[in-house]
């Protein structure tokens, strides 16, 4: 076992750092239903960490716990070496955790650029007074943040639709815009809830490439939920497997693939 503070180098030469987030014995209930039962796992700096499992396994609930949308009844969330008190989602966002949603949650009435700029909100510190005057500090800040937003728009190859209202875009592009908005926050950890759901093979390949590029270029730590087993095995460094709210496997894709529990619960009945 590797120590929490140690780093290591992967086969393809990327450096995986120490543990940045740790979930300790998380239990989440909705009334009588236990969506998550006593789950612990960690996320290391710079890695791509996947959470997989059949429908209703509690994957999305887990992501919602990390991003502060749900507060677990039991267990602790440790972030950057200290215990995180219960927080509102916007406070979690301020701490550098950005996310996308399973069923796209973009600001439909706003342009792509404006959507990406909302991702910069946590980085814009000038108060309402200066913002209203829109000169000096506020103007400088707007320009700086606009540059970051444009860089990310370039990076994700959505320059052509910068000014298009999001409502007019097709599904695949909306997913990409949502990724852009999350990336614009320059997050420490990026949470992706089924980034490839409902996509065709080509779009999936594009998205996989973007996820790998993001990780590679910006060194962003990524935690993602995905159904497509092939994609998960190719992309991720380590995988957590959930079933009925319990953790049944945790390790590298190769380890998980050979885990008998996992094969029984999930891979054995996979449709791919």
């Amino acid at each position, binding site marked *: 076992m590797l120590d929490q503070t140690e780093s290591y180098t992967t086969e393809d030469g990327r450096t995986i750092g120490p543990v940045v987030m740790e979930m300790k014995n998380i239990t989440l209930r909705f009334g009588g239903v236990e969506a998550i039962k006593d789950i612990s796992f960690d996320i290391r700096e710079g890695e791509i960490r996947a959470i997989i499992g059949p429908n209703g396994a509690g994957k999305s609930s887990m992501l919602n716990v990390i*991003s502060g*949308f749900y507060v677990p009844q039991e267990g602790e969330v440790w972030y950057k070496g200290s215990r995180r008190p219960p927080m*509102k*989602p*916007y*406070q979690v*966002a*301020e701490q550098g955790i*950005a*996310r996308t*949603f399973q069923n796209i*949650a*973009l*600001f*439909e*009435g*706003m342009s792509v650029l*404006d959507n990406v*700029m*909302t*991702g910069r*909100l*946590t980085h*814009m510190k*000038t108060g*309402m007074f200066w*913002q*209203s005057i*829109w000169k000096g500090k*506020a103007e400088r800040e*707007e320009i700086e943040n606009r540059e970051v937003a444009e860089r990310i728009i370039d990076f994700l190859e959505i320059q052509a639709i910068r000014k298009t209202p999001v409502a007019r875009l097709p599904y695949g592009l909306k997913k990409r815009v949502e990724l852009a*908005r*999350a990336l614009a*926050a320059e997050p420490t950890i990026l949470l992706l809830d089924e980034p490839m759901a409902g996509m065709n093979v080509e779009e999936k390949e594009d998205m996989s490439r973007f996820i790998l590029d993001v990780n590679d270029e910006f060194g962003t730590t990524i935690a993602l939920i995905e159904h497509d087993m092939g994609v998960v095995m190719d992309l991720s460094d380590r995988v957590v497997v959930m079933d009925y709210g319990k953790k049944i496997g945790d390790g590298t894709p190769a380890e998980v693939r050979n885990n008998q529990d996992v094969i029984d619960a999930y891979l054995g009945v996979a449709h791919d």
Partner: protein
Amino acid sequence: MPEQLAFTIEVFLNGLMAGVLYALVALGFVLIYKASGIFNYAQGVMALFAALTLVGIIDGQVPFYHLINAIFGTDIHYFGWKVNSLVAIVVTMLVMIALAWMVQRFVFRHLVGQEPIILFMATIGLAYFLEGVGDLMWGSEIKTLDVGLPQGINATIDEATFNLTGYGFFIDNLDIIASIVAAVLVIVLVLFAQYTKQGRAMRAVADDHQAALSVGVSLNFIWILVWSLAGFVALVAGIMWGTKSGVQFSLSLIALKALPVLMLGGFTSIPGAIVGGLIIGVGEKLFEFLIGAPFLGGATENWFAYMLALVFLVFRPQGLFGEKIIERV
């Protein structure tokens, strides 16, 4: 120029000015609707409440004096000082911000994620509550509001038009000020919503609460901001209407005139509120002058706006500038 034509033009111009005042109220509705998806029935009452508070502060009236006198058997009405109008406006704005905070804290925070109709009902309740509190706080007698805005006929326009056409136009100074104020207000609000960080967050909240949270927007703060802005617009509308026709409780009824304005302009468009207000203002004045008074026995101003709105509902339900309603099948 024949007298009749000149007179029609004068009516037209006065209609424009009246329209500006309607637009001021409608603006408050659009603002809240765009930013939070709530149709705020209480906007008119908020204008009344702002005007009442402003007059009360300027005159140095003791708040809740009826109540105080009834409970303690005293006979106090005024502190005995006059407050500078500018200071009073600032204090009133602070009261409106406090009100925004209370509305958010005690009403809407508990209704997050509820159906729009529930939120709408809550604003109706808020309207009656505010009307009651306004009465209790400042009394129900009609008051005159004078913050030093010029009133009465504009001599320059009168003279110029007299020299030009042989007929002097009567344009009220206050109406001119109201138009300028409305124009500035609209420009400032549009720029604020479009280009500032807070404006962007406001639009984000209107679109999707969850997504807004995920990019680090505090819903509480944005809602207080939105209601404060609505309070600010209400204050401006209250000052204009209060100066024009005295601060009285029928002021809250002008909110009803804002409804046809919104149906014309569209509930989601700030320019729409302005254009809608102008059309209604001009429409009802001209209709009264050209058709209503000579042929229909007059008093058409009372219903013309609603009639026009009805016609619009049939042919263009989203209004002139509203977002098109397209349903994908």
